[in-house]
């Protein structure tokens, strides 16, 4: 891409989640719900129906007592880039262009008013990151007072998902524009989960900017679809070639191994081979 006055270098926002630091407290989940006007229902224990843009999964090493070990894994939308930029699993199947890949930020959008609820994207998402509104959102009387004007509440019949708090990006850009700056600083745009995490386990920034903490932590290899050079870093279902922009760090081999499917005969986490 040529750099010019109007064509600045594209950004690729991504996230690094340190699973050694993550305590599984769930702050990221609630920060996300509060930031993005996520609705709630009386019974949220059916997790297939419970809308959680950010969800913390519990992993288990499967060993018997007392060798058991547990690890938590927060899962936002992976904002997959695919093998070719913009070839995310969900974007490529949406018949309504209700979800799109932003070349400028690398964020996969979700435009609620375009979505007519076919849920093809949900079927194609290997991370269960997308949720369908089976019911109209209802806030108890008076509680709609806390709804943020920056994110529109969704209606019945549409799919929703994590947007990397895109409205925060827009606000940061607006602010930079008003101050006659072309670029936003790393700390000007941070997602709600990153900000809230009490353990400081989430880092957010531009993967294309080598000075940003995310790049320094995982050292994404642009020649191999962003595969991390840091041996402790991994991505979920790397072998599918979805090229996600969410990276995980763990010092525990079994946790890294849980990030993908391996045959029993594969003893070690192998470097994935990308075809195409």
């Amino acid at each position, binding site marked *: 891409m040529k750099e010019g006055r109007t064509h600045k270098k594209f950004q690729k926002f991504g996230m690094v989640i340190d699973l050694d630091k993550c305590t599984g407290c769930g702050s990221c989940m609630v920060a996300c719900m509060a930031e993005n006007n996520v609705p*709630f229902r009386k019974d949220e224990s059916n997790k297939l129906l419970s809308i959680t843009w950010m969800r913390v999964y519990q992993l288990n090493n499967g060993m018997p007592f007392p060798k058991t070990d547990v690890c938590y894994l927060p899962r936002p939308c992976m904002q997959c880039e695919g093998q070719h930029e913009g070839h995310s699993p969900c974007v490529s199947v949406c018949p309504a262009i209700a979800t799109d890949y932003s070349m400028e930020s690398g964020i996969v959008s979700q435009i609620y008013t375009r979505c007519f609820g076919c849920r093809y994207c949900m079927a194609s998402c290997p991370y269960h990151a997308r949720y369908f509104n089976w019911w109209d959102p209802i806030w108890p009387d008076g509680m*709609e007072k806390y709804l943020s004007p920056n994110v529109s509440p969704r209606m019945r019949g549409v799919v929703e998902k994590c947007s990397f708090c895109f409205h925060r990006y827009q606000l940061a850009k607006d602010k930079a524009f008003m101050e006659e700056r072309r670029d936003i600083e790393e700390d000007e745009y941070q997602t709600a989960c990153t900000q809230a995490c009490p353990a400081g386990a989430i880092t957010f920034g531009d993967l294309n900017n080598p000075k940003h903490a995310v790049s320094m932590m995982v050292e994404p290899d642009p020649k191999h679809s962003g595969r991390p050079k840091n041996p402790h870093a991994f991505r979920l279902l790397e072998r599918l070639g979805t090229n996600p922009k969410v990276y995980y760090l763990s010092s525990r081999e079994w946790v890294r191994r849980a990030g993908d499917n391996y045959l029993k005969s594969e003893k070690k986490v192998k470097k994935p081979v990308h075809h195409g």
Partner: protein
Amino acid sequence: MKIGRRGFLSFVIGGAAGTALSPLPWKMMDDSSIWTQMWPWTPVPEDGEASYVNSVCTLCSGHCGITVRKINNRAVKIEGMEGHPVNNGGMCLLGLSGLQLLYGPMRVKTPLKRTGKRGQGGWEKISWNDAVSEVVEKLRDIRSEGHPQTVGFISGSDRGTVSRLFERFLTAYGSPNFMRMPSVRDSYELTQYLMQGVEALPGFDFENADFILSFGSGIIDGWGSPVRMSRVHSAWQSADVKVIQIEPRLSNTAAKSDKWIPINPGTEAALAMGLAHVIVKESLYDAAFIENYVEGFYDWKTRVIDKYSPETVASMTGIDTRTIVVLARGFANASKPLAICGRGDGSSPVSLKECMAVNALNALVGNINKKGGVWAVSEPDYINWPEIEMDAKASAGMQHERLDGAGSKTYPFTRYLLPRLPETIDSGEKYPLQALFVSEANPIYTLPGTQAVRKTLDEIPFVVSFSSYMDETAQNADLILPNHIYLERYEDVPTPVGMIQPLIGLSKPVVDPQLDTRHVGDVIIQMAKGLGGSVADTFPWDSYDSCLKETLGGKWNSLIEDGFWSDSGLRIQAFETSFDTASGKFELISRDTGSTLQFKPVNIEGDEKLYPLVLIPYDSIRLANSFIADPPFVIKTVEDTVLKGEHVFVEINPKTARAKGLREGQRVVLITPKGKAEVKVHLFEGIMPGLVALPRGLGHTAWDEFLADKGINFNALIGPVEDPDSGLDVAWGIRAKIEKA
């Protein structure tokens, strides 16, 4: 024009192809999806000017700084305050959900008076004037009859101006029965008083420690100030600090520690003594500290050497001798080792024996009141009010012994023993309670032995709740005088639990009061004025706000500006002046009480033959377990292996389950000597065989429809078990059995 077959078909096919190639169908599809989504009932949040207000969160004793984002006069988001010494921008999930408490359906909207029977939910609205005068009349009657001691007050805290006003009111009125809700602070206070001779708060310099030995403390499960604990936990990961977690169940803390050592429940004190045995025997202790500043070492040493050999301890705790020896060496050889106790989220006390043994470990390595150690933190000294006016009735009332037995001959040094209340009232040995006030506490839910506590409250003729929320205790009160919630009121917030740096925070109104509520401080002042005489004279302030402003004096402006005031420059006290005991030293065996303390083991309630299993509770930061219960966002995060529909899961080791023929997800009945409940089975390899674990924080019967009637309350299945040395309730488990439903 004649239309033939060919012409007709051409027209239809051509038309269809033309339409398909035109943008029309796509446009129609787009439009129809828009039309079918623009419902008037989908809220469109009003936009407006954004602003931010700094305050302090008081939903737990962690006291994080918060920054609340507002749009016009609506609060839309709570975030952690950047640069605050406790949380520096981080926030726990409960604090993040605070606005659901502000605008939520669980709030009490006006003063309410009970109609019909207690607990049946019949209420009528009354005015504030009527409500306050009703209370005043009742109190005047009790006082004129000469029984002021029969008025009790249960408070979630005894720190800060609001709690001090409660206590002040009670003293001026003539009752010694001010009671604080129990927590591990009770054990630590007593331990520090007996061993160090100080009345202080326990503080822990986690930031500078390099070896953490935790006797079941849920470091990242709600113990201490949760966000601070998360932050230090992350710092430990980077700094390679060793964390050893000792508990029978693989909690999140255990899973994140460097080593998890499962232990037989209730034998933690023995392990601490066993570790001391190794440290003493191998002379790994800080000889200079022991020699100069510790009293009673040789007697104590003899006891430890005689009674707690690794072999004996191994048989009690189920931990092998090798592990005990290695652990003791690891602890003693670290440069800044720190041992802590208080199981789970720290809301239950531990036995005096256990707390003193853990404190002794810290003393052995000389890590008292110094960098990386355990501190006795003195309360910031800013509440200096005039003497309380005591008339004859007040003085006579205050002569009575407390109902809970704290400060009595049996438990001379314990300050509060609220869990003993049902038993002492039941026995009728002292005097009955005629009126009870409850503020920021939910004893019916959080005290062990729900049925007994409820019965006790039922027998008190006049129960007044100051709760902002319709909790179980409010539901069983006669009168509810709802307080503003923390986002609507001023309140000083002294040093967060476990911090070593004295700190005062100021909680301030983020929005105007949303409902017909009143600051509890104002209500107390009005009650005092209503009673008149010396009680009124004890409260020279017009309102709570003027009282607070006067109390904080010069600090007020900086508190308004920054949200907190901190004592700059932490003073490390020399050991010569640190200890205020009879010997002026750290006393391993207290000279005052050494002979009376028995250190008997506290047994788990129930007959092993009838109840072959042991039920233990566990705490999760996703389940609030105090006067605040889970708001909708928080209960939403609870995993489906903990709660499914209305059923809570109990964790059982697959080995135990197999022996009993239980499978995953099976409905069973959990029975203890105190009660029974239907639960589901979750097989978990992270729990010791022979145990059953149940989360605390579920099983609410009040609150709101998003939380009520989900799971069961652990406290309904357990009763208090008294520590013979302190009187504190130290039950952390009860014998249990499981039957197929």
